[in-house]
């Protein structure tokens, strides 16, 4: 434990570095996956191919990807751009399917009603389809976020600073407390990012909160039975 107390600033630095790798990658995942998912959802024939490609990308082992990407991007292996790009790629691959399903699940009647009101295609997407897909998008993004945060440490093998460096350093030098601190801090970052997303969702989707409250009221007894069981 004394190692942790002596190295608080190292852990804090590593935590910030971890967040600075994970957060941009999560944002990229969302921003890139949604348009791809829109194409998959809008043009049915493209859906199979796009989701297949996304699945294949997700299947690439992470360490080789960290090494191959710099060759494609022209960045140094240890550049954080390289790491963020790799993490973003995995995030996109995972998010595309969630996003395509989320957009597909938006009520066709509601979209038709919006069209009949005189929504143009762009405005209908951003004003109606995207917000209504919001809860399902958020559910997917939470999985992507947690998965990204727990994937960051792999980049420590390249020597990029993150909580992963606490694992590699701790293993090499046989400091158990350092490894433990790395694991605990990674879990803490994942939880904080997840809670942050939930809070953001509540802020951006006030109607959802209201309807969840109502659903809870309606199924109150079922909930109690579930808790009792």
């Amino acid at each position, binding site marked *: 434990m004394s190692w942790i107390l002596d190295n608080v600033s190292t852990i804090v630095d590593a935590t910030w570095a971890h967040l600075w790798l994970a957060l941009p990658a999560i944002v990229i995942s969302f921003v890139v996956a949604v348009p791809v998912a829109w194409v998959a959802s809008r043009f049915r024939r493209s859906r199979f191919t796009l989701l297949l490609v996304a699945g294949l990308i997700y299947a690439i082992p992470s360490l080789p990807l960290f090494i191959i990407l710099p060759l494609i991007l022209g960045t140094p292996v240890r550049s954080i751009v390289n790491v963020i790009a790799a993490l973003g790629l995995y995030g996109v691959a995972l998010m595309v399917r969630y996003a395509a399903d989320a957009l597909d699940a938006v009520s066709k009647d*509601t979209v038709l*009603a*919006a069209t009949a*009101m*005189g*929504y143009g295609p762009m405005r209908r997407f951003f004003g*109606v389809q995207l917000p209504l897909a919001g809860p399902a998008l958020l559910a997917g993004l939470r999985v992507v976020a947690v998965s990204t945060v727990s994937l960051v440490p792999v980049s420590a093998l390249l020597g990029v600073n993150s909580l992963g460096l606490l694992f590699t350093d701790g293993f090499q030098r046989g400091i158990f407390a350092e490894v433990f601190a790395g694991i605990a801090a990674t879990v803490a970052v994942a939880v904080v990012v997840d809670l942050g997303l939930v809070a953001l969702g509540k802020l951006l989707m006030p*109607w959802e909160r*209201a309807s969840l409250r*109502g659903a809870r009221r309606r199924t109150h007894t079922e909930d109690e039975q579930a808790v009792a069981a």
Partner: protein
Amino acid sequence: MIEFRNASKSYDDGTLAVSDLNLIAKSHEITVLVGSSGCGKTTMLRMVNRLVAPTGGQVLIDDVDVADRNAVELRRSIGYVMQNSGLLPHRTTVDNIATVPVLRGTPVKEARKRAMELMEIVGLDPSQARRYPWQLSGGQQQRVGVARGLAADPNILLMDEPFGAVDPIVRADLQRELLRLQAELGKTILFVTHDIAEAIALGDKIVILEKGGKIAQQGAPAEIMAKPVDDFVSTFLGLDESRELHVEGDLVVDPSGRPVGRLA
């Protein structure tokens, strides 16, 4: 005035939803399209605001072919009320009503103020303004739907079975309100229903449709009731033998003796 000129709609699989329809819906009147499901009545309605493009013929509003107008602009100029209200679930009552004016560029504040007035006109309590659609009853949702259809003060209102999903008492209430509104506003209304009683209650003119979007008979309710042209229309109106009624005491009964009404 809405005019269908030889309008047809066939789908790729060969089904003919509407064939060679010629029909005029006069300005400031309620024209009701009535028929069983599959008679193409919803397709006809959707041709007017270009949700469906005719595969033949034309649909004209005040002698202008709708195909020559910008679809989005056209839709913003026509009120549309649908079954299950079609409200946007992520918008409050007041914002749902303000939708079209906001799309047309009215400042949000002004559109909301007008929406509050419309709530009163369609008989909604102001306390419902900040609620989301699922927090309203079926009847209230339909009122919001009607208010939204009227919000941009369109000349034309298209109503697609707007009262189909509410119970009979609420439906009768909504029908009365619609007639009261119409007496004030004088819109050109094209109304679709499968309920002949609703058609008779609301229509200045009723158009009875057969399968494939063919007109079986059209005219004022009294005309059609007095002179149905064929068996199809009589059956649809409920004028066949099973509805030959007679009076027993205070009650009106059908041939099997079941009470169907009371003599006033």
